[in-house]
């Protein structure tokens, strides 16, 4: 089939390229154009000459006509339909003449039914507002004759008797009106729910929501920008049913982890990202300037994603950037300044709490006190100095600011959207070394060249800079927790105090890590309507993407001055850096892509039948290259260029790789009477990552929709009047996932046995090379395949005030690539290859409900959306002797295994009368565990699944509401998650991790004989063999409700603005992560690292202004 298509296209292109430039068909779009001009356009397009006399055309008004792909004869009929003109064609010459008054026509009142042609005029108005509608298309059913209403909503048209007029207007229900004897028509059109005519961006095209048979959710840029997101990914959560987003940290520049419809496979579950038609990385998506976004849609079911074939199984995020609109240039500025602060972060113990707890811990361990009574007293009295490392390292607030300016405008021929953006997001470090900056430029230009050809050029450049000290933000938080409260920051002489290990205050300004991430994209889009077949067009895209990352890491040791109590220097201790030395590692990473596609689209209506088709060829190529240089042994600190490095221990390294894909896509849509909708798609994907024999994969999908509201039993029943639109849709298809044969962007070629270079062996006092075998090959490796069924319902009710969408899906992912490490004994001695082995079922539901209304001057809306999904492993290799209670089969992915805790032993009697736990008789204050296997002792065989949920929520929901009143507007988003658990571990539950580190204050509620109802077990220095184990004791339900974003605006009076030549001005207050309600205390429920060593999520408050001029 592919071959035949290719041949056909070659003939077409040959034919057309050999044509002399004149077409047999006419395309006109005329508005108040003198007839002569129309003739001249037809002549230019077709080569036909026109002949007329001046008298013939005198006194005639200018005409309006819109003609696509008609013959000269048909086109002239349209042009002349309301005029007293007629024409003859001889050869290539058109003769224009005045109509002869026909005596038979004069007798029309005698025999009106036989009158072949007559003129009707009319006006089209909105049924609700009674305001005229301009630009409404009026066509004679079954004919190509038609016109468009003028600015007063008026039209006039010459029709045959007995015709029906089809009146259609974007956003309004199309009406078909039989014309009797009326001459003057008053046509009312009723607006359909805003959602229904919304253009939904889908793979390789757009479709009106009413025609959609797939499961797609879309959010428009306006809503995104209201959330003032620093990272685009943070704006999507809670807005799109089916989208699961978790924001695991709040470091500058960081975003959310997004998946669509939960977890369906082992390994990578992330969605494919497509920006303006081109596949891009998730990192690139996160870098986008939110002000540039027109819409983001997520494609969920197979019907929507199958056009992305081998990469569509985990859903697709489609981003469309803004384009220009017709009109004068409009300047738009949006900017804000704000502050950020941690949403929740627990306090640490102070010196006295630390000292007392430590003595208690040592008592529990049978060790002598660490602090004498006098020392404790001195700490309590403040005689012993203490350091609050948190306060000395981190500011309470960090600023954030964003400025964006755009220009948008154009004519019918040329539209442009140009924008420039800047974002500065500071971190909490006192040193001001931690920040994220982003500069972005975009130019989206659409040009119509001639009647049939449109070219769009999208250019984008984004430069982001990540700056920090050579210690990562996570490391610094970890070190703040570890720092000892009785250590000093500086010696009395101002040198850095010898803390032996972590020193957060010095770490925040020690060395640097600078990353500059540059992304440039250029996409050319061409579309040409083919003149010889109505509705056929040929198009293509060429896109180049280039991203390069320059990273420089300057490691500088912290020179701690160890002094004795008299201030004599004992040693200068170089802590950290590269083995106590200064070092620089600089790397350059480049990834260049080119995507090229060609497509043939068809779109036409035959009576009740509407047909659309797409044939597409796409080819993707990527080349990546990396190198780095490393030097150390610098002569002095501060010489921070590679060239200063010493001769010893230099290193240089580099690597390249490439990727390629070739794909063929076909799609066919058919609808009958806009009531029955069908779609079929097929993608054939070839990829370099698979062996030659199985390189191509086939991914088909089918979907259908039934617009029930068009059925007479709904439409004609007054009882169902409240139903404006009701559509049932269903889809089924097969989609692939190849992420797990890629390492990032790199194809892994797992079908071949490969060897890698290993570290050097020393032989005869010289380094000699080594090679090590890679993973065992899997010669038949292929795609993971997801079979997705989806059934959905779209409804608009109560005068379109209510919009409802329901979706249920069932997705079976098979051929999941997984190494059988669970079952194959390690005596095999090889790294196991991924095999297409496992099967996971995932099912879920999604709901979206919106309500819009108006009360007096108040326009308001409420929207609720929710999604729930749950997965279950159907097939995985299980170890031969695994206990049933720990099997993965039949359970969701990522369940948590641990001990079942029964509480804390409150008394010694309770502890001594219980079983031995892990070889020790427990003491009061220890955690009591359930004896699962009944062997009267607690050991590793008593582990069970303590939670089938994990840190990825199975249910996520959003509640938005807002509205406008007078000049105020409000937009609020509450977001929540449920069926989500976190297992606290490490520092967040352990005392003195490592023996001497500080503890979180909440751990003070530990067991003592005086506090037998404590929340935490008795303290211990470091891991306690009984109390530090993963157990239900530390399992937290981290369901939450969060005021995710709020935006309150005030629009300044237009009267005032006119004086300063502004069109619009709106000031706003916005905030994100304002508060969170959760059973999980002390920590943000989305905590990225349950040890606590992570950069906390930030609450952001902004003051902003939106200006148009």
């Amino acid at each position, binding site marked *: 089939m592919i071959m035949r298509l290719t041949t056909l296209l070659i003939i077409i292109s040959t034919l057309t390229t050999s044509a002399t430039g004149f077409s047999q068909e006419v395309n006109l779009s005329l508005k108040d154009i003198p007839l002569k001009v129309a003739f001249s356009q037809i002549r230019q397009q077709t080569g036909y000459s026109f002949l007329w006399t001046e008298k013939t055309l005198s006194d005639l008004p200018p005409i309006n006509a819109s003609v696509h792909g008609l013959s000269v004869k048909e086109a002239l009929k349209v042009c002349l339909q309301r005029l007293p003109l007629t024409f003859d064609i001889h050869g290539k010459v058109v003769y224009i003449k005045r109509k002869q008054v026909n005596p038979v026509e004069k007798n029309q009142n005698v025999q009106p039914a036989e009158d072949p042609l007559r003129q009707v005029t009319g006006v089209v108005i909105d049924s609700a507002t009674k305001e005229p509608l301009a630009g409404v298309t009026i066509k004679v059913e079954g004919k190509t004759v038609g016109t468009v209403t003028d600015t007063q909503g008026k039209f006039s048209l010459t029709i045959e008797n007995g015709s029906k007029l089809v009146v259609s207007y974007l956003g309004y229900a199309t009406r078909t009106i039989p014309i009797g004897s009326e001459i003057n028509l008053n046509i009312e059109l009723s607006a359909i729910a805003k959602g229904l005519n919304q253009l939904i961006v889908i793979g390789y095209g757009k479709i009106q929501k009413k025609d959609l048979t797939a499961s797609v959710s879309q959010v428009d840029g306006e809503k995104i920008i209201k959330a003032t997101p620093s990272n685009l990914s943070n704006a999507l959560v809670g807005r799109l049913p089916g989208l699961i987003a978790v924001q695991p940290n709040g470091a500058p520049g960081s975003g959310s982890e997004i998946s669509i419809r939960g977890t369906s496979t082992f390994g990578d579950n992330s969605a494919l990202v497509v920006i303006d038609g081109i596949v891009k990385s998730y990192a690139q998506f996160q870098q986008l300037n939110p002000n540039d976004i027109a819409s983001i849609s997520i494609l969920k079911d197979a019907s929507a994603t199958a056009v992305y074939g081998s990469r569509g199984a985990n859903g697709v995020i489609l981003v469309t950037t803004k384009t220009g609109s017709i009109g004068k240039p409009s300047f738009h500025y949006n900017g804000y300044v704000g502050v950020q602060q941690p949403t929740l972060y627990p306090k640490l113990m102070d010196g006295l709490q630390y000292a007392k707890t430590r003595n208690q811990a040592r008592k529990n361990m049978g060790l002598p006190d660490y602090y004498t009574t006098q020392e404790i007293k001195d700490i309590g009295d403040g005689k012993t100095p203490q350091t609050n490392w948190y306060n000395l390292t981190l500011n309470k607030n960090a600023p954030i600011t964003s400025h964006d300016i755009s220009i948008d405008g154009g004519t019918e021929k040329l539209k442009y959207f140009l924008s420039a953006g800047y974002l500065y997001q500071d971190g909490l470090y006192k040193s001001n070394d931690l920040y994220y900056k982003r500069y972005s430029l975009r130019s989206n230009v659409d040009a119509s060249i001639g009647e049939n050809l449109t070219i769009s050029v999208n250019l984008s450049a984004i430069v982001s800079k990540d700056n920090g000290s050579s210690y990562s933000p996570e490391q610094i938080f970890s070190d703040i927790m570890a720092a000892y409260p009785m250590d000093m920051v500086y010696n009395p002489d101002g040198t850095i105090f010898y803390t032996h290990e972590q020193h957060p205050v010095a770490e925040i300004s020690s060395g640097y890590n600078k990353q500059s991430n540059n992304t440039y994209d250029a996409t050319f889009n061409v579309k040409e309507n083919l003149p010889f077949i109505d509705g056929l067009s040929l198009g293509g895209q060429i896109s180049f993407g280039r991203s390069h990352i320059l990273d420089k890491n300057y490691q500088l040791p912290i020179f701690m001055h160890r002094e004795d109590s008299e201030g004599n220097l004992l040693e200068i201790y170089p802590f950290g850096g590269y083995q106590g030395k200064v070092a620089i590692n600089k790397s350059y990473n480049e990834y260049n892509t080119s995507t090229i596609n060609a497509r043939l689209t068809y779109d036409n209506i035959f009576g009740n039948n509407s047909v659309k088709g797409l044939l597409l060829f796409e080819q993707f190529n990527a080349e990546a290259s990396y190198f780095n240089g490393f030097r150390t042994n610098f002569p002095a600190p501060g010489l921070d260029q590679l060239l200063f490095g010493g001769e010893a221990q230099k290193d240089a390294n580099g690597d390249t790789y490439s990727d390629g894909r070739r794909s063929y896509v076909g799609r066919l849509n058919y609808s009958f009477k806009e009531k029955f909708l069908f779609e079929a798609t097929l993608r054939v994907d070839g990829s370099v990552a698979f062996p030659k024999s199985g390189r191509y994969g086939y991914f088909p999908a089918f979907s259908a929709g039934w617009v029930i509201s068009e059925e007479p039993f709904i439409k004609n029943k007054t009882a169902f009047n409240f139903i404006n639109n009701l559509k049932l849709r269903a889809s089924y298809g097969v989609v692939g996932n190849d992420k797990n044969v890629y390492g990032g962007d790199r194809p892994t070629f797992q079908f071949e046995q490969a060897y890698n270079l290993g570290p050097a062996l020393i032989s005869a*006092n010289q380094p000699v090379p080594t090679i090590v075998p890679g993973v065992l090959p899997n010669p038949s490796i292929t795609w993971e395949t997801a079979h997705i069924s989806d059934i959905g319902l779209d409804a608009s009710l109560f005068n379109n005030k209510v919009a409802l969408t329901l979706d249920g899906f069932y997705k079976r992912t098979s051929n999941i690539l997984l190494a059988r490490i669970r079952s194959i004994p390690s005596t095999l001695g090889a790294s196991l290859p991924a095999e297409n082995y496992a099967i996971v079922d995932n099912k879920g539901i999604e709901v979206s409900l919106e309500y819009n209304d108006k009360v007096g001057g108040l326009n308001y809306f409420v929207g609720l959306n929710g999604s729930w999904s749950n997965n279950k492993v159907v097939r995985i290799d299980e170890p031969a002797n695994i206990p049933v209670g720990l099997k993965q089969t039949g359970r969701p992915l990522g369940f948590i295994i641990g001990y079942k805790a029964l509480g804390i032993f409150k008394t010694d009697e309770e502890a001594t009368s219980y079983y031995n736990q892990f070889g020790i008789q427990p003491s009061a204050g220890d955690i009591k565990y359930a004896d699962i296997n009944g062997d009267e002792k607690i050991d590793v065989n008593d582990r069970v699944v303590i939670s089938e949920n994990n840190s990825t929520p199975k249910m996520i929901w959003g509640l938005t509401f807002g509205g406008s009143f007078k000049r105020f507007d409000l937009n609020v988003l509450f977001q929540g998650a449920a069926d989500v658990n976190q297992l606290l571990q490490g520092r967040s539950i352990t005392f003195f991790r490592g023996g001497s580190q500080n503890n979180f204050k909440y751990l003070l509620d530990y067991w003592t004989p005086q506090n037998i109802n404590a929340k935490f077990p008795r303290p211990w220095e470091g891991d306690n063999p009984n109390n530090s184990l993963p157990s239900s004791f530390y399992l937290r339900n981290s369901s939450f409700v969060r005021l995710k974003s709020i935006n309150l605006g005030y629009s300044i009076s237009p009267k005032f603005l006119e004086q300063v030549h502004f069109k619009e001005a709106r000031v706003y207050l916005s905030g994100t992560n304002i508060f969170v309600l959760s059973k999980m205390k002390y920590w943000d429920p989305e905590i990225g690292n349950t040890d606590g060593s992570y950069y906390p999520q930030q609450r952001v408050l902004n003051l902003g202004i939106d200006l148009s001029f």
Partner: protein
Amino acid sequence: MAYIGFSLLLSCNKDGFLDRKPTNTIPQSDIFKSSDLINAYLNDLYLDVPGYERNLYGNIADEARTYWPGGSKDVVRGNWGPRSNLMAYWPYDDIRKCNTFLMKIGNSDIGDSIKNEYIGQVKFLRALQYFKMIKRYGGIPIITKPQELTDDLLVEKQSIDSCFNFVINELEGAIELLPNTYGNADIDVGRANKWSAKAFLGRVLLFWASPLYNPKGDVNRWGEAAEVNLDVIENGPYSLYPDFRKIMLAKNNQEEIFSIQYLKPYREHGWDSWSMPDSRSRQDASDRCPLQELVDAFPMKNGIPITSPLSGYDPTHPYDNRDPRLQQTVIVNGSTYGFQGLPVYMYVDGIDGIGKPYETVTGYQLRKGTDESNQDYYGQTGSDQNWIELRFAEVLLNYAEAKNEFLGSPDNSIYDAIDRIRERAGLNPYQVPTGLTKKEMREEIRNERYIELAFERKRYWDLKRWMTAVERLNGNRFHGMYITKHSDGHYTYEVKPVGETYVFTDKMYFMPFSQDDIDKDPNLAQNPGW
């Protein structure tokens, strides 16, 4: 315009667009064609032999304890088993590499002599890896061909004897194939040759004869072990290096038989860093603090144990007139250490005093093998001494032990072997008193092994193979030295227990297989007691 674009597109639609090769790997098909790549493959097998390790094996017997939590402390407490065993060693990936090499090398067209040399080395390395496992687990699965995923992968373990037989046969085969020398000591010490294979066989046979692996007490095994070790002593190219202190520092010296090679900055370890007292540490310190029991095992310079009233031992000056190896092995309070040439004060409340964070837990630090001129030490790096896996002194001790066990009473050759070691140590007189019974000689030899080979990862395995671990370790708390400095500058000494009470039960003589492997392989029977 669209047509032009489309035509362009079709013209770039060449075959082979999707034929790509990985750029960061070498296909297997290339490897056994190139002698350079075969060499690189072989080099990697040497890299698999463990070299330095930070602080586990030194701290799990009666040699030392450490400040650092976890790790060795769990072993001492007996807190280990099938689910967590830091001593676990299961190098079937290394064995697979050897098996693949032996399978593929046959078809390569390098010359036969070099091929045999390579096969000899790989057989040696594979035997070495297997022996390290047998030492731990007793019987294990012996796999000699690279398995395919379609093979029956649920393997069984072999008996202890058949495992030993396999290793012994392989080593004998390797000895046949290997050259006497590569003509360069720097290479000979880093690669297996005929003599290193033979010396290693001597160790394997000694283990096989030892009570743990020889429950029926087949005395001929001792004889066989003695014979092979004697062959190395008499006919091999090795001799004792004259300076005990510098054995680990004089790279590739005449005493080294087989070493894991290091060279800064390509391959480094932290031996010097790990021994530092906190006052001069960089990111690590006090990893092995020698126990009083080890210190006490060193005799006086006159060769008489300190427990003997004739020794001249003075408990108020415990480090005076001792076997010179004591202070070459242990940093004692007040002795100088490190490139700064400063003394280390480990008395209670001294700058590096016992019991402080990151400081000694026994009143001692480790000096053996450290390079005191090293200024690069940092964390796990900065040192490049070779890890001597096998040295001539061990062969002498292996011989002495095997021969003593083989004979009814010790002969001169046994005295001679021990005396050679004591002479090099600088004892005066160095001769072991004559007329010892077999049992007395056994104790003499065992003590000599304890002090001569301290911190060379021998002691734990010796206590196990002699089956004396329960007696020596279980229920014991070992000791450190608490030193008090008085105002007039003199010290008093008090021995106190330090660290955890040791738990070593009978089942621990053979380690358990990892629970993961037991879970996966129903044919793999767990060792008794676990």
